[in-house]
Structures are given as structure tokens and as C-alpha cells.
């Protein structure tokens, strides 16, 4: 279908080391999730999923109400809420604030939303230094790469790759022991934390009734990012809002389990407002930037709106047999895997990469593991239908459309259908019941060629089922 998608998928499939890295890492996460939600350790797992889905549905159905409540409560605690409609608006806000405060160095904790709006690039373009402090993100930033996975951005890198990157970019001695690599990064980053003027983080949840944001992480870098610099800016999509603090009881049980198989992540931070008198740490200023960037466009559609329930746990990526083969970079946009396949076309429009919703066998493994029960295959099917409507409108993909018209016609004319079957059987090479591995010239059509590039085709039956059935009567 799409040349770029196919090319990247092909490169990934052909790279044996990469295949092993993806398969091993996702396999470990996959098994971790299964063990952590097993009925003996989390008996109410399915009820929790149902609850999480209901809470998200309610929050998204009443998004305006909860965003306003969130804003009121953030303001009451001395913070400020800023609404941004797109990437430019976010960059403008951060740049403006940095200029006012005379800031030059920014530290960042992991946030897919900042990736979505290319924040680092935009800030660096204006002479600011913006440093990723999550280890995986830091490695990728050094190597000018995008996250490969929503939760484990450097999942495709082995420790040997990391050694090479550190040597090349930091002039560090070649070091392949993971603990020593971590210590090296810690040393560099500690200095950045202490000198930074602004800390930028994402948020896992925006809690409307308390005006708090919740951040889940394992490295402690988000705590430093949000408390050490004088200014803390949170960037979050508007869909991250949940109504009540007590809803976290549901989500916190699900998120880390679904993501990594941990019962809870190492750090769960609840942050609200700036440092108050008498408090010993925390920023002087606290901003929450709420990003639309296409999200409100999803709201009118009753079916597809559920895409906004996503809590970015990455479980669908680990479960997906397609992601596990073609990895993160085959997907356009920053969100990869099944959730990316439904998010990206809705953010960027279905014609941006029309092949994307079709790159799925619809096996449903994603929906099975989704902690908020997003019916990803259903949304994919909706998007497929939208792609075809757009292609019809633009008068593209004519041959395929014609084929499916012919298919529908044949399938509603049983006699002709039977005759077509006979013709196909007659045309197939006779091989005494042996499977067919190459097509004779008259069968050399693109779909047949594509099938035979990987597998053999079944031989035609000696007698069709209908013939056998008639003889049997």
C-alpha cells in the first residue's frame, strides 16, 4: 500500500537483531502483564476494566464540565491553566515564558504529548537547551531518534547500542554494563536538574475535583523535573482529565500492571499548585498546558470517541503481533502500535496515511489487554470504511473498488459464483493435490503474487463441495 510504511516495515523485518530486541522486550512486558492481572493476585481485574471504561466514558462525555472544574481547582491552588490548540501554540507559550523568566535550560520528564508537538525541536530552534531526563528518552535524544514505544522509548536499543551512543555523543569510555551506563547518565543529568530554569512534564491524570496532576514513573526523574526548577510546566492532552481523586483507585491498579507488570510504579506523584509558604520544595510557578491538537475533532463520533479513553499504558503494543514484527518506526506519527493506528488517522486525517488502519489482522489482542476497554478493532473497521469513502471521493484505488463490486455481485448470484469456482479450479495448475508454489502466467495477478511471495496456495479440489453434496443426496 504505502511505500514508506512498507519500506520501514520491510527494513525492520529484515533486521534479525532488531526483531530479537522487539520480540524479547515486548514478550517480557506481555508476560509481566498477564502475571500481574492473574485472578489470584487481582481477582477483580475485569470489574476494574469495566469501571475504568465507565469513568473514562463519563469524563469524555462531559469533558467541558470537568475541564472547567479542573481549571477552577488548579487556579484556587495558585496554578495557572493554559489552553493550546496546537503545537505552535504550545511552543509559543513555553518560549514566551522562558523569555520572560530569562530561562536557557529546560529539563523534561517523559511525555508522549511533548513528542506529539515536537517540543524539543521547537525549543532548540529558538536557542533553548531542552534535556530529556528519562533514561530511554535521553539515549534517543542523544541519537536524534523518536520514541520507539509509548512506555519504553528505547526498547529497540541493546546495551551495546547504548554504549556506542554514549561514546559517540558524550565522549564517554565504551561501557556495556547497564548499571555503569545508568550511573554515567545520572551524573550528567543531575547537573542539568540543578541548573535548569524550567521543568516540563507530562501528566498521566488530571484530577478535576482536586486540581492535581498525577505522574507515574520509575526513575525519579519526573520528581526532580517537577520540583527542582523554579518553574514547572505540565503539558497534557485534554482527554487526561478524570472527575475525582478517588477514581485513581481504579486507574492506579490498572496502569502499571498493564504497562510493565508492576503492581505500582516506583514513583506515583500527586502535584498541585506551586510551593506554598512553609513548604520546603516545589516550584515557584505551576502551569498546566491543556492541548487539543485534534482531540476535539474526535468528540462528535459516538464510536470513535472511545479512542480518547487511552491512558497510554502501551499494553496493546506489547500484545500486538504486528507491532512485534514491524516495531515503532513503521508507524507514522509518534504513537505506534494499535493505539497509534487509531489515533494518528484521527489526529491527522484518514488520508494522511491511508494504509494505516489496514495494517492489522484484526486479531483483537489489543482490545483484550486494554485496561480501559477500547474496542480498537471496531475503530479500525470504522476508519477503514472512512478511508474507502475518501478514496472514492478522490477517485483513487479504483481497481480495488471495482474488485469489491464484482465480489458483491458474484456473491449475490450463486450460479455464477459456482461457475467462477469451476473456472478457477480449471485454471489452477494441476499438481495431483500438491500445494502450489508458483503461479502459471495466466494466474499471475498481484494478490496471487503477493500470497505466493510468502506461502503456497491450496490445490483446487478434485470435486467442488457442491458437486460432492449433490452426489451425496
Amino acid at each position: 500500500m504505502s511505500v514508506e510504511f512498507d519500506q520501514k516495515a520491510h527494513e525492520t523485518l529484515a533486521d534479525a537483531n532488531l526483531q530479537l530486541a522487539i520480540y524479547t522486550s515486548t514478550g517480557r512486558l506481555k508476560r509481566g502483564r498477564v502475571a500481574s492481572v492473574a485472578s489470584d493476585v487481582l481477582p477483580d481485574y475485569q470489574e476494574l476494566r469495566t469501571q475504568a471504561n465507565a469513568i473514562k466514558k463519563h469524563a469524555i462525555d462531559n469533558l467541558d464540565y470537568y475541564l472547567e472544574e479542573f481549571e477552577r481547582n488548579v487556579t484556587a491552588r495558585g496554578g495557572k491553566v493554559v489552553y493550546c490548540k496546537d503545537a505552535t501554540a504550545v511552543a509559543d507559550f513555553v518560549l514566551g515564558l522562558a523569555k520572560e523568566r530569562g530561562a536557557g535550560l529546560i529539563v523534561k520528564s517523559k511525555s508522549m504529548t511533548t513528542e506529539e508537538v515536537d517540543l524539543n525541536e521547537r525549543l532548540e530552534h529558538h536557542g533553548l537547551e531542552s534535556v530529556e531526563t528519562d533514561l530511554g528518552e535521553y539515549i534517543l535524544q542523544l541519537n536524534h531518534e523518536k520514541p520507539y514505544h509509548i512506555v519504553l522509548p528505547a526498547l529497540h536499543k541493546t546495551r551495546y547500542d547504548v554504549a556506542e551512543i554514549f561514546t559517540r555523543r558524550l565522549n564517554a569510555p565504551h561501557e556495556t554494563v547497564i548499571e555503569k551506563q545508568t550511573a554515567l547518565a545520572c551524573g550528567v543529568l543531575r547537573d542539568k536538574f540543578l541548573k535548569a530554569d524550567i521543568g516540563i512534564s507530562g501528566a498521566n491524570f488530571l484530577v478535576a475535583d482536586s486540581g492535581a496532576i498525577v505522574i507515574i514513573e520509575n526513575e525519579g526523574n519526573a520528581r526532580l523535573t517537577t520540583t527542582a526548577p523554579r518553574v514547572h510546566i505540565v503539558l497534557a492532552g485534554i482527554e487526561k482529565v478524570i472527575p475525582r481523586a478517588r477514581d485513581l483507585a481504579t486507574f492506579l491498579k490498572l496502569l502499571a500492571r498493564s504497562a510493565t507488570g508492576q503492581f505500582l510504579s516506583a514513583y506515583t506523584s500527586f502535584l498541585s499548585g506551586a510551593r506554598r509558604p512553609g513548604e520546603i520544595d516545589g516550584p515557584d510557578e505551576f502551569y498546566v498546558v491543556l492541548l487539543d491538537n485534534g482531540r476535539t475533532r474526535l468528540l462528535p463520533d459516538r464510536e470513535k470517541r472511545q479512542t480518547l479513553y487511552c491512558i497510554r499504558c502501551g499494553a496493546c503494543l506489547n500484545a500486538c503481533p504486528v507491532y512485534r514484527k514491524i516495531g515503532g518506526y513503521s508507524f507514522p506519527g509518534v504513537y505506534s502500535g494499535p493505539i497509534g493506528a487509531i489515533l494518528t488517522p484521527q489526529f491527522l486525517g484518514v488520508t494522511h496515511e491511508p494504509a494505516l488502519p489496514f495494517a492489522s489482522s484484526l486479531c483483537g489482542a489489543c482490545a483484550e489487554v486494554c485496561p480501559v476497554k477500547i474496542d480498537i478493532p471496531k475503530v479500525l473497521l470504522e476508519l477503514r470504511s472512512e478511508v474507502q469513502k475518501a478514496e472514492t471521493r478522490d477517485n483513487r484505488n479504483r481497481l480495488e473498488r471495482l474488485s469489491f463490486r464484482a465480489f458483491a455481485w458474484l456473491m449475490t448470484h450463486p450460479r455464477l459464483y459456482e461457475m467462477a469456482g469451476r473456472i478457477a479450479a480449471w485454471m489452477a495448475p494441476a499438481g495431483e493435490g500438491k500445494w502450489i508454489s508458483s503461479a502459471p502466467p495466466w494466474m499471475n495477478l498481484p494478490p496471487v503474487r503477493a500470497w505466493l511471495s510468502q506461502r503456497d496456495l491450496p490445490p483446487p479440489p478434485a470435486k467442488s463441495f457442491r458437486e460432492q453434496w449433490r452426489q451425496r443426496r
Partner: protein
Amino acid sequence: MASVLEGLGYQVDFPENQTCCGQPAFNSGYRDEARAVARHFIRTFAGYERIVVPSGSCTSMIVHHFAELFRKEPETLERVHALEKRVWEFSTFLTEVAGVEDVGAHLDEVVTFHDGCHALRDLAIHDAPRKLLSRVRGLELREMQPNDECCGFGGTFSVKFAELSGAMARTKLDAILQTGATTVVSLDPSCLMQIQGALSRAGKAVRTMHLAEVLASR
């Protein structure tokens, strides 16, 4: 399938007007075309008490997606809802409607069972085929690990993303071959075509059988 059902005392008919459930068009985004084929299906099978389907994927299309296709046609939708209750995937028809597990089959083979994704996840069919296989005389069932992964068929996906689909099939093959089984059994002919096609290409002697073929073996 007909022999197994007749062996249990059912009167079986094969309406010769039947063709397809329309899933290829539906899954490819051609809903008008899928609707035309689905309408033909509904008409063809109108007069039958039970419709037994030798495929989890087709069953799922009928019981889950027909209703979506006729959302805006209340009369057809009513017929679809009536149809949904009469449509059964083969293995669950045997265990739940006929109430049998032992159909008197005999097959001396070591088999491994492949769960088709739509049977497993859309219809939650897991135990029925295993119960039926466990009662086949001479048959040993060995589970592959992992046993819940897609074979990579996915309809037009298999030719639109051939290389990817092939890679998924080969991963499936590894799991199958590790069991040492001589036969792969499934509820879905399309998975079996993908798996047998890959086995044949890899030059492996392992063969594939539909559950109905196993249960009809004497």
C-alpha cells in the same frame, strides 16, 4: 461437518444459494458491498432452525457485524437479531446445543490446536474444541506456546501486507513445530490455509485439518 451432525441425528441441508457472509468487503471498508452480500445471506438462511458455521470468523461477522450494517434499517435489523440467535459456530453447537463431547471419532495423531482469533476473542470459544478433541480415540492434544497468537492471515491483510503476514505465519509455525505434533487443527479454514501454505512452503510434513474432519474420522 454434515456427517458429524447427521451422526448425531440432525437433518442437515446445504442451501445451494449460499455464498459468503460478506466479511472480506466489510473488513476492507466496503460497507455497501458487504451489506449486499449480508442481505443475500439473511435471505438464503431465513427458513432454517439452526445455522451451523464451520468458521469462527464467519460466525463473528454474522453475530457481531450484521447488526452494524443494518443499523439504519429497522426491519432488516429485526431479522438480523432473530438470525443471531440461530447461528452457531460448529464446536459450540456440538457442546452447547447438541450437548455432546464424544462424537465417536477415532484418529491416531498427535495434534496441536490453533485458536482462530475471532473464535477466541470475539466469541470466547476456548474449551469447546478442546473438550471435543480430548474425546477422540487415539488422539493426543499438545498445546503450543503461546497458543493465543494470530497466524497472520487477516483476510486481505495477507496480500496487502504479504511480507508481514508471512512473518507472522512463520512465528506461528515455530510454536506449532515445537510441540512435535503431526497435525494442526482449527475451527477456521482461512487460518488453516495460511498455516498449511506456510508449512508447505517451509517443506514441513505437518498437515492441517478442520475440527470437523477430525470429528468425522473413524
